[in-house]
């Protein structure tokens, strides 16, 4: 095994920062959240005023089973530093079975991205229910820290 150099070599890049951004680099994480569980969980985090880094941008979908792997690749292409797919816990799917397909699809996708040389921390999937505001907070915080440690993503990106 060779040393994973990504984390140590790449310094936070400032050049690619949006105009007027604060000094500390904030990663950009695209999150796909199912309407019934994770989106509601994020709402609950808000209602409970649970603070987490402003790195996440949630895209609302009806079900995690709606998330096409191509959306994930497109996010990386366009400059996402991390991608999160989140939905109801297995057994809790509003549509009964959607997240079981999600589970298979993204387990495979995660392996594939890793095989292609993406750090697995950049693409994660999580089950967050509508009552798990604290879990949403914790997942976003952790993922942001993970990605901060890795630095900005350069892989698969088509914008410099």
């Amino acid at each position: 095994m060779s040393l994973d150099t990504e984390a140590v070599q790449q310094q936070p890049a400032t050049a690619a920062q949006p105009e007027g951004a604060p000094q500390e680099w904030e990663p950009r994480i695209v999150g796909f959240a199912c309407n019934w569980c994770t989106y509601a969980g994020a709402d609950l985090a808000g209602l409970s005023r649970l603070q987490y880094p402003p790195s996440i941008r949630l895209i609302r979908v009806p079900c995690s089973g709606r998330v096409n792997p191509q959306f994930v690749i497109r996010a990386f292409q366009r400059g996402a530093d991390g991608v999160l797919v989140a939905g109801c816990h297995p057994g809790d799917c509003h549509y009964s079975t959607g997240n079981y397909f999600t589970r298979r699809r993204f387990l495979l996708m995660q392996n594939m991205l890793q095989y292609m040389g993406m750090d697995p921390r950049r693409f994660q999937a999580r089950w967050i229910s509508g009552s798990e505001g604290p879990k949403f907070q914790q997942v976003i915080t952790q993922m942001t820290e993970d990605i901060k440690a890795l630095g900005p993503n350069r892989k698969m990106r088509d914008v410099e």
Partner: protein
Amino acid sequence: MRKVGVFVCHCGSNIAGTVDVEKVAQEAAKFPNVVFATDYKYMCSEPGQQVIKDAIKEHNLDRVVVASCSPRMHEPTFRRCIQTGGLNPYLLEMANIREHCSWVHPDKAKGTVKAIDLVRKAAAKVVKNEPLQKSSINITKRALVIGGGIAGIQVALDIADAGFPVTIVEKEPTIGGRMAQIDKTFPTLDCSACILTPKMVDAAQHPNIEIISYAEVDKVEGYVGNFDITIRKKARSVDMNKCTGCGTCWEKCPTKVDSEFDMQLGKRKAIYTPFPQAVPNKPVIDREHCLKFKTGKCGICEKVCPTGAVDFTMEDELITQQYGAIVVATGFDQFDHSVYGEYGYGKYPDVITGLHFERLVNASGPTMGKIKRPSDHKVPETVVFIKCVGSRDEAKGKTYCSRTCCMYTAKHATLMAEKVKGSKSYIFYMDVRTPGKGYEEFYKRTQGEYGAQYIRGRVSKVYPKGDKLVVRGEDSLLGRPVEIEADMVVLASAMVARSDAGDLARTLGISYDKDNFFTEAHPKLRPVETHTAGVFLAGACQGPKDIPDSVAQAGAAAAKAIGLLAKSQMETEATVSQVDESRCSGCLLCKSICPYKAIDVKIIAERVGGKTVERQVASVNKSLCQGCGACTVACRAGSLNLLGFTNEQILAEVEAVCL
């Protein structure tokens, strides 16, 4: 070029306190297609909504973005708002800058950056929004109830009382179901027949209820609101219009047959009603045993019938009728304990089941309510009850707990103590589960007042020794093997799905679990619905249940059915899947993963190389589709798209947040 208006809400200080809302509006104004952007203190208030409506007119807006709270909160509000403002309600997108931003990011600078991103995302999506329409379907205001046990009767009465016609289709010659076989009901010990038979009569006499007994559902076509259902009325050999139920025929019939109703402990005739209070109280001829059908001779019933109702030439009849809703209430079967060699493979006559015991203790049962054991009609004095027979046994039975056995076994022990003075009941159990009103108290009385001896352990073997049955168990609390010489052994056999449940499920297009119980649409939130819209569940066909639970579920299923029938038209989801037929190759992988069976094959004709050829494509039934979007990802070619969450819309959002 779209004309998008962006409306940023302060939500008092809820948003404005940590997000620079004016800056958000200013930035939003620079986004492509945005022609107007403003902020306001409370966007959801009357004046706030007026700001939107006015702007739509003034700036000729064709799309609207509201940046405020969660769409799960106010999306319906703002959809109505733009609708009154003259726009299709689906031309709205919301940016959740409160729950997802101002409330969680105290750093105003960072929060503002994120809020701008969220608005950009919404604006990018809304540009791709198209006007959507909810479609509507007509509802046939009639319900079909399959199964006429206590659950089915309750459903039918409730729906009928609400003013809708109901048909009960019952497989047996009479309604009443399992509850009619039961003697007393726990925990009150009131007589089962006394509370059931009045309901049976109510159902029979209700002007809105039609009972078709000795019949089965043959075919189901159509969908919610418009099911075309074919019912097979089995040949009864008795003309229901002529028969008065006088009973002369079954008195004179020479053929005796083991009674199914009495669990083979008593006899009935070849022309029979299962029990005296049957509804309808008109007999059927059991062709398998009737001498006339077997040998061509006899025909006594025909001769003695005063109204000439007996008709040996009768054939099965198929009738087709339209229904708006279906309630399935087909009940349960009792587990067949003949798989247990250690309990004698069902060959020991005095090893009986709970339902047998019900008949033995029932005053109108084969022993007139005197408890006598089947082998030699002796009154048993030592009785062993074994619980969890077939339940909680993955090796030979079912994995689940049958829920009712703890209580009915306690009831049986109570009845033993009452009916046979000086008798002793031993109950082998693994756990005693009594979660119900008055249940634990009943169990306590059984142990205390009625002196039933509870022994924790599963019985390993029952074998005859002389005229006794030796029962070997372990008292697992003591850690020692125990033996009881009993006169009779009663097995609390599991409740299992009807043997033909799978067939009915396929006919109805509903799903069933590994044990053949019908599956509810959601284990918590939609417990009486199925995945097939318009089909509801009541009673033990969905899983083991006692009478109170079955009746409660029946009421719930009736309410759901009434809710459906009360409308003359039903609105369906606007955000449904759509097939691009030109792209669809007809592989139908989508069909196999749709949880609602909303996708079907459709044959289309098209011109290829100068000739017309037919090919198959997928087709979405808008009334059934619930808009989950699973099919869109299964489709590699992207020929399926989910309206409201199209690939184009989601990709636009991805691009917008990555900018």
